[in-house]
């Protein structure tokens, strides 16, 4: 850790960043706060409403359902992506020409625009023209994600696993590569089993990157919008309407600015709160 010197002039160095981010964050956030306490019927006429929208949102079954769906979705993809990512990282070659090949191919889904991901999975999973849809139906299972909620969930989750597991793989792999060879040698001499090596060497050393991976996956999956929107449009019905999709429906679809703004703030606060809880829990675990 570097010993830092006190220097108030450092503010000049961070000023540009503060200016740009504040412009992008504070003004819109103020707009949102402003809307969230007012009612409008168009023509730029606003009425003070106080916390009415907040109460309404917090008590609305529609919001509860969307939040529940969101939590379920995030929970499921974390439970799949983290163990799967770690497992793939553990079996990846540590050196040799295949490393580059693996890394490049695995990183590929991360660099595809999100609506292309949605569109790609749409044509991949459609029961009449898609490879996946045809295969599942060919196995005798009735599968049509545009009509069956279960199939829609299955497809959305599979798509997210496809899209983001590589991030966990890359992070876990980076953590594994930083373990000195001597640890493995010592474990061999100590007669440790493969499980013990994982449990007592690899897992503890990956902890920091895994914390970051879980945090990033949690945040990003909680904000997910484009991919499911393109894939299922939130349907069938409201089956895959997650928080962001619902929010955009209210804000841009119905132009209910007040409720949308209140929901935005609640939504943002939930992410901040949960991230903070995650972070402190994992850090406390570290300190012990």
């Amino acid at each position, binding site marked *: *850790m*570097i010993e*830092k*010197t006190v220097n*108030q002039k*450092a503010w000049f160095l*961070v000023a*540009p*960043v*503060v200016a*740009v*981010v504040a412009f*992008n964050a504070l*003004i*819109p956030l103020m*707009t*949102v706060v402003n809307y969230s306490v007012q009612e409008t019927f168009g023509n730029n006429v606003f009425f003070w409403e106080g916390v009415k929208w907040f109460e309404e949102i917090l008590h609305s079954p529609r919001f509860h359902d969307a939040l529940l769906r969101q939590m379920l979705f995030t929970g499921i993809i974390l439970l799949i992506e983290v163990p799967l990512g770690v*497992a*793939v990282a553990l*079996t*990846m070659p540590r050196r040799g020409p*295949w*490393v*580059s090949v693996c*890394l490049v*191919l*695995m*990183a*590929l*889904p991360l*660099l*595809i*625009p*999100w*609506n*292309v991901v949605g*569109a*790609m999975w749409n*044509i*991949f999973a459609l029961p009449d*023209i898609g*490879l*996946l849809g045809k295969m599942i139906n060919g196995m005798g299972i009735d599968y049509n994600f545009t009509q069956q909620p279960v199939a829609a969930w299955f497809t959305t989750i599979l798509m997210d696993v*496809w899209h983001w597991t590589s991030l966990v*793989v*890359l*992070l876990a*792999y980076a953590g594994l590569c930083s373990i000195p060879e001597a640890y493995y040698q010592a474990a061999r001499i100590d007669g440790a089993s493969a499980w013990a090596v994982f449990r007592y060497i690899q897992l503890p050393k990956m902890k920091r*990157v895994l914390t970051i991976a879980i945090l990033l996956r949690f945040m990003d999956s909680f*904000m997910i*919008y484009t991919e499911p929107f393109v894939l299922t449009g939130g349907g069938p019905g409201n089956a895959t309407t997650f928080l*962001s*999709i619902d*929010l*955009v429906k209210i*804000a*841009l679809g119905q132009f209910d600015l007040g409720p949308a703004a209140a929901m935005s703030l609640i939504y*943002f606060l939930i*992410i901040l709160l949960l*991230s903070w809880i995650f972070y402190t829990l994992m850090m406390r675990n570290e300190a012990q």
Partner: protein
Amino acid sequence: MKNFKWLSPTLYILFLMLPIYWLVSMSFKTTNEILGSFTLWPQEFTLSNYITIFTDPTWYNGYFNSLTYVMVNTLFSVSVALPAAYAFSRYRFLGDKHLFFWLLTNRMAPPAVFALPFFQLYSAIGLFDTPVAVALAHCLFNIPLAVWILEGFMSGVPKELDETAYVDGYGFWHFFVKIFLPTIAAGIGVVMFFCFMFSWVELLLAKTLTSVAAKPIAATMTRTASTSGYELGLLAAAGTLTIIPGAFVIWFVRNHIAKGFALGRV
């Protein structure tokens, strides 16, 4: 057991490649073939979808628009993040920790929350439907990320480097550009990769802030798909073309990617 270790990454990569293969193969099919019969690879191989894209300005302009705002954003984010990351890694100043945390919270802001206010903000200052608007808007999450990663890299550079340079009579900016930046070149590369990546893949804001003139390629794609119904071959070809810049960028950073992930705390 050990000899079957390659199986797991191989299966995983196979799983990753399947949808991409389907997209690419569809881009070489005719609409008739896509809708009429189910074929594993193109029976009547055609380039007509690509020809359409490369000859129709509403299509290929989308590429220029996307690449323009992605590059403007990457260069801008990195150049303002560099001095800030230096300040965070070297100095303590009033409110530094809070500021750092506040920057990071912006990475947690759902773009959906900002879509409407951004639309109004950028309309009000007359930047709506320009690549600059999108480039600026993407700074919301790219600058915090860039500061975060760069701070990690810079903390790994011993402070003696700075002190030696100052003793040797270098001024701050001279030292920063001539000595410091070259030593963290790898870090800058990694950061540019991430800025490129997140700006390239984000669409909600990009779509909200543009209508005609600056529309990104990926948005052109969705709109075409919804208006002209089942031009799936065209859609697949456009999708395939959006994968190429990403693949290109990964190929360049392939040797640094694992290291970058480890060093720079992303």
